[in-house]
């Protein structure tokens, strides 16, 4: 009743090609942005910003990057953590070796290095498909983990492989407070989400989707598989690399290669699958699910007053997390984004049945 496009006529090509064609969507997105940029910093506590919102935003960004590869181009990757690591370490190295490089440039260059590594490990995708590719991308994960542990140059000869970033500033503003960090991350995520949303409906995005749906058919109608697959790997690992740099610089502060291990890759893949393959919005849903569930599970025993050991609690958390994932896959294999889409369809005709 309230959510429908009646009376919204498209009288120009411009209005026909908007990102959000329905006015209600535009209002909703604007409201969300206002809420995120103005209301949240005013209301949220430091703990909430640092422990929940910042990780959620950065992981959403990484999930968007992965979703471009898996959801839009159909190439499964289990090496996302590695590309995050490359982004983080490259950005850190640039900061250390070229003192005075602005933070934003560092982070973007981190993304650029991740792009290079991503394209190199994307080359096998031209020959290898499906599950074979998934396992092959593990090569990236293990190789990168090893490289940052064993090659001292990358960690500037720090003995334990542990690196830490100095005090961050952006245009002369210190990024030490939770609110400043949050706003910095939020701006990155908002810009990249918008770019990604635009990219996937461009010619490039359509090529990716054609390759995903049937690559032989796509090449028959004149799409170059090599170009399409490698651009997907490049764009995806750029975004993932940027998110890795953000994760290291703004969330962790100091980290070691373990911060980007295989579990991180699995976690990101979970976000993409649970959120919904081939949906930018789904990446946010998935990230919210994966970030919030462990936090919630952590608090439940103490709320119920159950005296659980740390170990047992961790194991039970594992079990519940695993079964929730299976449950979601069974209940809605197309992810939370699909539930959202169904909800919107229902909303259009509400309160009438047809």
């Amino acid at each position, binding site marked *: 009743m309230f959510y429908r496009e009646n009376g919204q006529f498209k009288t120009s090509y411009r209005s026909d090609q908007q990102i959000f064609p329905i006015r209600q969507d535009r209002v909703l997105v604007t409201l969300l942005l206002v809420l995120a940029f103005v209301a949240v910093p005013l209301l949220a506590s430091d703990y909430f910003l640092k422990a929940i919102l910042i990780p959620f935003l950065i992981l959403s960004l990484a999930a968007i990057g992965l979703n471009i590869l898996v959801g839009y181009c159909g190439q499964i990757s289990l090496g996302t953590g590695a590309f995050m690591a490359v982004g983080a370490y490259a950005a850190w190295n640039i900061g250390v070796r070229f003192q005075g490089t602005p933070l934003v440039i560092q982070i973007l260059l981190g993304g650029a290095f991740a792009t290079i590594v991503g394209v190199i490990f994307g080359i096998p995708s031209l020959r290898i498909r499906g599950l074979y590719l998934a396992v092959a991308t593990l090569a990236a994960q293990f190789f990168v983990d090893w490289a940052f542990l*064993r090659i001292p140059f990358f960690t500037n000869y720090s003995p334990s492989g542990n690196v830490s970033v100095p005090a961050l500033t952006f245009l002369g503003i210190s990024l030490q407070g939770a609110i400043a960090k949050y706003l910095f991350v939020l701006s990155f995520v908002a810009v990249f989400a918008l770019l990604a949303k635009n990219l996937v409906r461009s010619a490039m995005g359509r090529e990716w989707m054609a390759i995903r749906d049937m690559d032989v058919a796509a090449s028959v109608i004149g799409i170059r598989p090599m170009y399409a697959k490698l651009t997907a790997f490049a764009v995806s690992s750029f975004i993932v690399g940027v998110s890795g740099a953000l994760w290291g610089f703004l969330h962790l502060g100091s980290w070691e290669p373990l911060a980007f291990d295989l579990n991180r890759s699995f976690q990101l893949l979970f976000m993409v699958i649970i959120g919904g393959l081939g949906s930018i919005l789904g990446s946010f849903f998935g990230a919210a699910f994966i970030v919030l569930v462990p936090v919630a599970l952590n608090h439940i025993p103490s709320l119920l007053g159950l005296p659980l050991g740390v*170990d047992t609690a961790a194991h039970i958390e594992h079990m519940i997390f695993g079964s929730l994932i299976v449950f979601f896959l069974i209940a809605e294999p197309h992810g939370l984004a699909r539930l959202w889409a169904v909800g919107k369809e229902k909303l259009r005709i509400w309160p009438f049945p047809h």
Partner: protein
Amino acid sequence: MGFFLETLFGGLMTGMLYSLIGLGFVLIFKASGVFNFAQGAMVLVAALSMARFSVWIPQWLGFDSLLLANILAFAVSACVMFVMAWAIERLVLRHLVNQEATTLLMATLGIAYFLEGLGQIAFGASVYSINVGMPKEPAFILENLFEGGILISLEDLTAALVAATLVALLAIFFQVTATGRALRAVADDHQAAQSVGIPLSRIWVIVWTVAGIVALVAGVIWGSKFGVQFTLATATLRALPVVILGGLTSVPGAILGGLLIGVGEKVSEVYLGPLVGGGIEIWFAYVLALVFLLFRPQGLFGEKIIDRV
């Protein structure tokens, strides 16, 4: 030369273990099209259950025989694997028929999380040992050929023999028995198998149980060598390149791939490792498999991938 042969033997023994774990992957993939990431968790649960029951059962029943305790513990652990297989089919696979490979992969990751949690709650999370009476002392062979002979570990040799026996038994089971024939039919074509009256769900339970028992044997061997602990679940990731090298759908491929990777890993670590700072066996197998796949995307023995528009 003697040292090289020693390295080679060491690699073959590790390779046998990889083959066993790879076999579990292949069995399940062939029969149900599921790439089972939970195989590692299954090995962990099986090994934990073996380690604990072999201590608990003598305590409960009040006898003191290592052999009997181990046999009973093995039987109980096999039952545990059967119950697990049944539960997985009933609660997960049945509801995910016809879903995409990625969804199934993620579901097995969910199962892996669940099993890791469950196993450690049920059996405890410390480091346990399994004692199945494997010979621990090393032996020297070919002493007349090389000076001092070649050092091989009898434990590894026994393990390799056990693994080889298991593979032979499985081969007989698949080739001779009616159930084995049904399993092969399902692996060949789900729909055709179903249309001649082979019950898919029962086949899946059998296959997961068989994979569980393979996991149990792998867990016992691995556990008696290095002890049973949580890292067992991730150690099995090392066996993944085996499967893609040999081909996801090929049992001989898993065995040969396992041996190849085992040898490649050891030889590269010994001869190449010192040049680049060591620890390369973690990724060497993956890169080897990756390069190999570039030339033969379906693995050594995998079915040829045919694309139709």
